[in-house]
């Protein structure tokens, strides 16, 4: 990984005494390659390198006997700090029901994640209500109903409705009547550039005032992660992020890109297809994974 590459870079310099600006630049190039191969957005990578370069040209590196190890340590620390703390909780409102809305591109894992979140909250003695807000995708409502059945968690659906805003509104009213304290709204996958569908999300937000709008993102997303996250955040407002399919071998550089452009916390990671495969986000583990 990066650690080995940097060892090699600095091995060639051993016995030359002090490190030069050029030596540090070589090291920064290696870090840049690692970040780009990990799908960190190339502009985010550029800013990050500039940030760590100032630490890397400090005395601790220039006088170190193991400069390669030191650079890796700095990169790891800075990356971990950037990825943010561990805030792996849904903020529960003091005036129930807490309303959570899941949004994101097509196929990111929203419906499955809705089930996982509901399962987690049920284990925390909450009484969640799942809401089938995707009226477009074939068998989307059925998909959420099957998950609800598996989890023994109620699913609110209006089979004949063509109005996701009305569905969301009715669901919250239902939750109040039936004492469900968390409402999890699954929405249809959509493109950030589809104005009609982005407006639909804004209308749902205006109507039911979610406490948490979670952007669900596939961990294998490449450079486009910045554009997508920025659009969703600017147009709708994002409270937190869930990164899915981290059980694969995607390095997950999108995590850094999204955090850098939105500043919002990555709260959970999806680690599999089963409904118990939702874990807290650990910035240090994510940093090591990105660096490879």
């Amino acid at each position, binding site marked *: 990984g990066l650690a080995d590459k940097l060892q090699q870079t600095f091995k060639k310099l051993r016995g030359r005494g002090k490190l030069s600006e050029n030596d540090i630049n070589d090291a920064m190039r290696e870090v840049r390659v690692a970040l780009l191969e990990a799908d960190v957005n190339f502009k985010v990578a550029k800013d990050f390198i500039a940030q760590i370069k100032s630490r890397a040209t400090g005395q601790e590196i220039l006088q170190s006997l193991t400069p390669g190890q030191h650079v890796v340590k700095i990169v790891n620390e800075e990356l971990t700090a950037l990825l943010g703390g561990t805030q792996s909780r849904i903020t529960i409102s003091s005036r129930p029901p807490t309303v959570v809305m899941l949004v994101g591109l097509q196929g990111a894992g929203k419906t499955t994640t809705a089930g996982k979140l509901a399962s987690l909250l049920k284990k925390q003695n909450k009484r969640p209500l799942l809401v089938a807000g995707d009226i477009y995708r074939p*068998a989307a409502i059925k*998909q959420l109903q099957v998950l609800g059945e598996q989890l023994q968690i109620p699913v609110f659906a209006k089979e004949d409705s063509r109005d996701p805003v009305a569905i969301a509104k009715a669901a919250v009213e239902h939750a109040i009547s039936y004492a469900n304290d968390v409402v999890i709204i699954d929405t249809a996958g959509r493109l*950030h*550039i589809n104005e009609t569908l982005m407006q639909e999300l804004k209308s749902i937000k205006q109507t039911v005032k979610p406490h948490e709008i979670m952007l669900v993102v596939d961990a*294998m*997303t490449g450079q*486009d992660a910045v554009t997508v996250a920025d659009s969703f955040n600017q147009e709708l407002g994002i409270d937190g992020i869930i990164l899915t399919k981290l059980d694969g071998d995607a390095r997950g550089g999108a995590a850094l890109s999204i955090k850098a452009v939105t500043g919002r916390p990555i709260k959970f990671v999806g680690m599999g*297809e089963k409904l118990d495969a939702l874990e807290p986000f650990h910035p240090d583990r994510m940093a090591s994974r990105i660096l490879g």
Partner: protein
Amino acid sequence: ISGYATIDSEFLEDLEAVLLSADIGIQTTNKLMASINTGIRAKEIRNPDELRPYLKTKIEEMLLKNVPEVDVSTEPPRVVLVIGVNGVGKTTTIGKLGNFYREKGETVLLAAGDTFRAAAIEQLEIWGKRIGVDVIKQATGSDPAAVAFDAVQAAKARKVDTLIIDTAGRLHTKTNLMEELKKINRVISREIPGAPHEILLVLDATTGQNAISQAKLFSAAAPVTGVVLTKLDGTAKGGVVVSIGGELGLPVLWIGVGEGITDLRPFDPREFADALFG
């Protein structure tokens, strides 16, 4: 750098940024940028205006490796197996592809080979109804290889022209799921020599460099014949297929440009290369 006299470094940096932001990847980007030197020395590039066309040509070359001849000699049924990681658009693509063949006048049959995911069978059945095509299925939880077997028998018995088999999304790193894929492939080829005639790997245009790992590991499990690149109607450019073409020789055959029946187009390398710089 000699020859760069009229091509300033800012211009080159901008070009590099275009390639990187399109998910071409750092290794392939470096190769393409290095090829500019070669082009300058060979006088194929004489001024900055010729840089983009030169790169587009190089990109098209990588994309045109191994594009298969259209094989019309296959005895029916032609069997198409659709594979890929979770959520990339396999089931939707099958709906679109089934419609394409049906509009061409072929008889088409679909197979609900995803016996695992919630409402996967129902999803494909709705597509079948939309395009007027039957769907072979078994109960959720049954062996996908058994569904494939059933579907092949049905296709032979009904003498359909094209059978398209859906599979469950699977991460390429999950050994047991890749073994399951190998078994599905074996069952199909035992029942019809030479089948599956097409194995389509579906890749999502928003995916970054991990698509290369997907292409490698899926190809190791079953002889992938081509790629379907979906969700090109978004802002992602899908540039990783340039490396997949150049390094692995896998051609892109179709692109998905939306969620509707008609949102499937044959891949055009020139259009794709133009769009990268667009």
